[in-house]
């Protein structure tokens, strides 16, 4: 009789994921057995699970390990992305608490799906094999398709879900076909084996890699694969938009970075399509943001441009690139979560208060809200003393040292930043312009989003003033 060896699974390595999965199941169970389970209670369980998972990640520091036959690897790189994803999850759960009618019919399903989304993101951050990458991406995406449509009362939310699921599946189609061709070119699904095929790339390899990049580009909302982004960001509930903007982007960048570093390991001509779509994204994102009058759409275009910026960290494929990428994504997480928290704060359950016009004169009514939003806008624009500025300086340094493509990207980054000054200052200008008579003040003064706003401000300023603290922590 043939014996089949049981797989060796090191549960210490996957402990943060186990904690999150248990949290998601616990939420569902509590909702099932307890009639008195309130929304507040379910979301609190979610946040507690987040903290437990975060502690488990921190406990792994200094002990890189692999399990599942090397398909799942935890290292400095995955820890950094796990941290970003967990912060985004906690912020998203906090923001969800304010929205009374926005979590669809069931707060338990909503919060557990959000937790399972984060599990998918953390799988992606640790995946070293095409199958696990695909599994992580789908775990993240499938739950998000549903969450995008949880604003049941609003047609815009349903429309966002439909657009997201259609274009998300299309992206997965590219990803699968690309992965299949890469498998064909290398004979293995492990990234380390694919690296051998990358040394002398065949036509099959180049085609597969290009299709893989198209799929990843869709998920990252890089131009020209960004068309779904503004609609989905605008239509989805605000807490979900915040999660999409931060966690999905961070997780997908972790896949892209691991792929580029493990498979290529140095700059190669095959990466040219990646640099080209980065340049296009910076142009489309910044120019597209100019005409926007809705803050959520503005932040969507902003995220397209920011995704383009992050690609610069990969330019040259050098060791410092990874720390630069992690630094910029952490800065990006703080400023975006903060900005979305401000929108949730002003909206207070209603989704309609994202028009820039309703922020007119905000400073004279609610100076703290306006001050915090100004910090986030300055950081997105890249004003000194904010995290965004340091991040952009690091990116520029990375790109300039990386040959002609790098210099081209650096030039576009500078030009794009100049254009984006107009975009972000338009918001700040509106908040500081004098009050108009008879204009109604946006309601809402919930305490909960303030936690996220305060954390965002603290993160942005701390990373802007003492960047070496974060940089040395993430340095690989």
């Amino acid at each position, binding site marked *: 009789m043939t014996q089949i060896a049981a797989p060796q699974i090191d549960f210490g390595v996957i402990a943060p994921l186990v904690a999150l999965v248990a949290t998601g199941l616990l939420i569902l169970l509590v909702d099932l057995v307890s009639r008195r389970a309130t929304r507040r209670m379910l979301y609190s369980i979610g946040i507690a699970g987040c903290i437990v998972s975060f502690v488990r990640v921190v406990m792994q520091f200094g002990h890189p390990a692999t399990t599942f036959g090397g398909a799942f690897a935890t290292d400095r790189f995955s820890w950094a992305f796990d941290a970003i994803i967990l912060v985004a999850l906690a912020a998203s759960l906090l923001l969800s608490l304010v929205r009374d009618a926005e979590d669809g019919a069931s707060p338990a399903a909503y919060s557990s799906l959000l937790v399972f989304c984060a599990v998918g993101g953390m799988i992606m951050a640790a995946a070293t094999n095409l199958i696990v990458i695909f599994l992580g991406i789908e775990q993240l995406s499938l739950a998000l398709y549903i969450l995008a449509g949880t604003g049941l009362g609003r047609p815009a939310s*349903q*429309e966002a879900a439909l657009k997201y699921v259609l274009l998300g599946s299309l992206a997965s189609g590219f990803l699968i076909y690309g992965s299949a061709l890469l498998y064909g070119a290398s004979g293995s699904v492990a990234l380390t084996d694919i690296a051998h095929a990358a040394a002398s790339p065949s036509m099959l390899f180049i085609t597969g890699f290009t299709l893989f990049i198209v799929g990843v580009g869709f998920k990252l909302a890089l131009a020209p694969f960004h068309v779904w982004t503004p609609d989905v960001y605008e239509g989805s509930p605000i807490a979900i938009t915040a999660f999409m903007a931060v966690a999905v982007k961070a997780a997908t960048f972790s896949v892209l970075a691991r792929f580029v570093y493990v498979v290529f390991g140095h700059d190669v001509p095959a990466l040219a399509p990646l640099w080209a779509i980065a340049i296009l994204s910076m142009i489309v994102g910044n120019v597209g943001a100019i005409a926007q009058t809705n803050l959520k759409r503005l932040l969507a275009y902003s995220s397209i441009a920011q995704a383009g910026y992050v690609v610069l960290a990969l330019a040259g494929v050098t060791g410092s690139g990874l720390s630069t990428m992690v630094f910029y994504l952490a800065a990006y997480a703080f400023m975006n979560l903060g900005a979305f928290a401000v929108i949730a704060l002003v909206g207070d359950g209603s989704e309609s208060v994202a028009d820039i016009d309703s922020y007119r004169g905000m400073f004279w009514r609610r100076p703290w809200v306006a001050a915090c939003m100004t910090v986030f806008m300055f950081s997105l624009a890249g004003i000194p003393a904010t995290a965004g500025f340091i991040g952009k300086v690091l990116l520029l340094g990375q790109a300039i040292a990386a040959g002609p493509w790098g210099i081209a990207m650096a030039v576009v980054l500078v030009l794009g930043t100049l254009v984006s000054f107009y975009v972000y200052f338009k918001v700040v200008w509106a908040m500081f312009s004098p009050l108009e008579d008879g204009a109604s003040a946006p309601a809402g003064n919930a305490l909960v989003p303030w936690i996220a706003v305060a954390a965002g401000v603290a993160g942005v300023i701390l990373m802007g003033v003492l960047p070496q603290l974060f940089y040395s922590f993430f340095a690989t």
Partner: protein
Amino acid sequence: MPLIPLDDYLVLSAAMFVIGLIGFLVRRNPLTMLMAVELMWNAGNLVLAAFARNFSDMSGQVFVFVVITVAAAEAAIALAIVVMVFRRRPDVDVDDISVLRG
């Protein structure tokens, strides 16, 4: 028994992928668009299975099973969303879905 060369599988799968992509771009019915996407996913499956046989390697076959499983979950979710969106509409056409400016 005649042997089918690997290249034939690749050509067939490339045709499936392109037909799926064109179908997705041309059709305006979300159900047809989803079917077109399924065709693209299965084009990938065919490549994986063909290469797995060629290499006599299991990982490609495992990948196919993972893709099939995910495709089932994805179809369930996508159809639920389509039903949710079009419950109050007489016709199923993505061009009617235009609250957002996209």
